[in-house]
């Protein structure tokens, strides 16, 4: 589903991803861990199509298509979803209007009729349950005035609405209390299907108790320096990154 080959990415002349490689197949869950500043969010943003980063070389294939050739909105309509580490507040744009537009643009892309107001509201009520959102979203602007945890829940709510094929969740667990962490993790698991894939970026092994990964990768200084199964996360928790850093040297 996702194949990244020898990817080199820089910003303002500073290289961040260095010959980065990964392959994610349908049905898999991958976890990416790594110290602050190692390039995790950069990777996520480049996959989603953020244009402030420069792709110097390499390729990203998504279901065989060249993702780098597609504008970010097209990637999204084709099923790529980024759960933001820092979700953006957009005052004046209501959650309802935002989601309805997003859903209908996606439907249009696949030649489907737009949802009626009633259909949409029904869908929204249904998907709110996935992450246990009680609040009425009707009068709320996108992320405005949401607490840190609510913003993260809102990301998974949007994922539930859009039903992506490839979801990249950038530190969706940070800022969540223990109960919310479970709710969010259960939400992600509930959205799991045999033909989609999830990449979770996290600092904490605890999340992986709930969202159990098939593979764990350690990103350090812009490249994957170690890959393994979920036991690798436990080992990291125990030994810290010094261990990896020493191994790399």
């Amino acid at each position, binding site marked *: 589903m996702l194949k990244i080959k020898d990817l080199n990415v820089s910003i303002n002349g500073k290289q961040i991803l260095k010959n980065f490689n990964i392959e994610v197949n349908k049905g898999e869950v991958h976890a990416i861990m790594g110290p602050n500043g190692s390039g995790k969010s950069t990777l996520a943003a480049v996959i*989603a*199509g*953020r*244009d*402030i980063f420069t792709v110097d070389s390499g390729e990203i294939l998504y279901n065989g298509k060249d993702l780098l050739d597609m*504008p*970010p*909105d097209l990637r*999204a*309509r084709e099923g790529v*979803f*980024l759960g*933001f580490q820092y*979700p*953006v507040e*957009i*005052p*004046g*744009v209501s959650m309802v*209007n*935002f*989601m309805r*537009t*997003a859903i209908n*643009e*996606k439907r249009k*892309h696949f030649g489907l009729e737009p949802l009626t107001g009633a259909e949409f509201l029904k869908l929204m009520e249904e998907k709110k349950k996935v992450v246990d959102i009680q609040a009425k979203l009707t009068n709320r*602007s*996108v992320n405005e005035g949401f607490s840190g945890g609510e913003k993260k829940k809102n990301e998974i709510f*949007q994922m539930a609405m*859009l039903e992506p094929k490839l979801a990249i969740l950038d530190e969706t667990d940070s800022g969540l209390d223990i109960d919310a962490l479970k709710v969010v993790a259960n939400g992600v698991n509930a959205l799991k299907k045999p033909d989609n894939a999830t990449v979770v970026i996290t600092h904490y092994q605890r999340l992986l108790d709930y969202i159990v990964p098939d593979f764990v990768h350690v990103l350090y200084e812009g490249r994957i320096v170690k890959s393994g199964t979920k036991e690798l996360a436990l080992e990291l928790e125990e030994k810290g990154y010094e261990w990896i850093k020493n191994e790399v040297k």
Partner: protein
Amino acid sequence: MKELLIDLYNKNSELINNGSPLFVKELREKALEVFKQNGLPNTKTENWRQSDIQSRLEHEFAFNFVNQSKSLDVVDIFTCDVYDLDTFSVTMLNGWFVYQNAPITQLPDGTIIGSLSKAMEVYPEIIEKYLGKAADINKTGVTALNTAFMQDGLFVHVPDNVEVEKPIQIINIVDLKENTFLQPRHLIVVGKNSKLTVVHCDHSLVHNISFSNTVAEIFLEENSKYEHYKVQNMGKNSSLLTNLFIKQKEGSSLVTNALTLNGAFTKNYVDVGINGKNCNSELYGLYLVDSAQHVDNQVFVDHAEAESTSNQLYKGILDDESRAVFSGKVMVRKDSQKTQAYQNNKNILLTDDAKVFTQPHLEIYADDVKCSHGATVGQLDPNAMFYLHSRGLCEKTARQLLMYAFASEVVNAISIPALKESIDNMVQKRLRGELSICDQCLLHCNDRESPVFDIDLNKI
């Protein structure tokens, strides 16, 4: 132009003063003298530097000193976009009040609504008490000019303790085959503890050159509440000056909102005199301009008494080589303690050629006050754009959504739900490039070339 106007007055003074009480004639002539002294503002005049009216006056204009449209059924020629509101609606055609049923109507609650020209004859004692008392002829040349030539406009008098339920909607239409110079004059008095809302729509139906210099005087008695909405949707050859003078007495509250959706040249001046404690003044503006459109909002709030609050919020989106000017001045006088005054002007420029001149300004002589001012000029937030893209919204949709979000802060300040919805629709239409002045025109004018006033979304 100045000499020409003075000459015009002298030649037509019989017509202009026909039927007016003596004090009105005296006021006109006093104003003419002031105009002789001061003339029209030019680009060296304070607050007019960026807005050149002289060049907009370099045309031959027709003046209408006689009402030719007394009883026309306006619905036949025009429906305003905010028309289906449940309002008491009056129409001004080419500067003259249209007598739909009668020149003056008195509502069961005692409110008088009608033609100012007629009111001068019927209610001279009310007119004398207020006319010219807020609009200081020494302040600007255009106010003196309007005062010299004023003949007709809307007159509203709300007695004490009356809440006028329906908003009064005044539709100002320019529809003449010649280039037209108009000087409407409105007078509105809201009695103690009374409440009134006025919606003022400006339209041009033809693409001839028109120059409209409006003065409105509004008097808010103790504890009255008044809201004034201006919706401007003018043609590509129209110049519109509106001068709103408001005098507030103790405990009164004021809302003004100027929504400029189209217009070649627009200058809105709002002058608020706060002459009592516990007044509240909320002044809003929204301008959405493109091509070579020019919009200027000038605000002056004079906190002449203590313990009042004023708040200004003006927002604009500019495309192409359009221009916007904002100059907001707040004066807090020496004894006006515990004043709160806020000013904010925010702009989004969609092109490198669009320009904003913004100058919020506070002049404070009291020491126990809370005041702030700010201005921003920027583009749409790239982080928000990316967030929307990442959910599948295309470039055009994402931009429209953000522009609408930016504008909605001003639209949301509209307190009447029906009006808010109607303006909201107009703003959305405008942002999609679908609002044209010809849409509503039922006239079959020859000059039906459709003006293209759409904000080009691809240039952000």
